[in-house]
């Protein structure tokens, strides 16, 4: 299966700062999703983005499929953005492979 590498593993920000999270894949993916796991453990779908760029409020994501990476941008961060951000990719066979996540802490 594919390998999914996320960076950085941990990130601490002050409220209002911007950040970029990165996800690298060992092989080309045909599906890619970003999730936010909140402090209660719930997995929230952020983006389904196998290629291109999408935006949703203060969050946006870009996937460059040919170069096997995806980026998640968080602008004007808020304390409610804290949690773990996961990317997950799929090559074939209906299997999502998750990275180990980026732990984001936003301080007031």
């Amino acid at each position, binding site marked *: 299966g594919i390998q999914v590498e996320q960076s950085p593993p941990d990130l601490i920000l002050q409220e209002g700062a911007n950040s970029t999270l990165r996800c690298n894949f060992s092989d080309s993916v045909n599906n890619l999703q970003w999730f936010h796991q909140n402090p209660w453990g*719930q*997995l929230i779908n952020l983006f389904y983005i196998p290629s291109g760029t999408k935006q949703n409020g203060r969050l946006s994501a870009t996937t460059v499929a040919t170069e096997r990476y995806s980026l998640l941008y968080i602008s004007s961060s808020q304390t409610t953005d804290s949690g773990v951000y996961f990317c997950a990719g799929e090559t074939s066979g*209906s299997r*999502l492979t*998750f990275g*180990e996540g980026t732990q984001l802490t936003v301080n007031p």
Partner: protein
Amino acid sequence: NAGVTQTPKFRVLKTGQSMTLLCAQDMNHEYMYWYRQDPGMGLRLIHYSVGEGTTAKGEVPDGYNVSRLKKQNFLLGLESAAPSQTSVYFCASRRGGNQPQHFGDGTRLSIL
């Protein structure tokens, strides 16, 4: 619209006991999945199903069995629970192969 519902939310078992986790989705999705999440890690796929009556092994299938007798339900069974199966279990579903997966809220399982 409830989405993906997992039952129970919490459970404590003794080593050797058996139990079944239930996942129900009301979105008429074809594909369903069971994952486990251990502390500090991403999710790992246990078993999955691409349609009613089908099941397939994922990355970490040992010690688990599954059944998909009805399209809307996907059951995960532990026949003889072991402490190594202490984890948070997530169910997910999706409409088709090139569609996003939608997750339930998880089941926290502790095995003593």
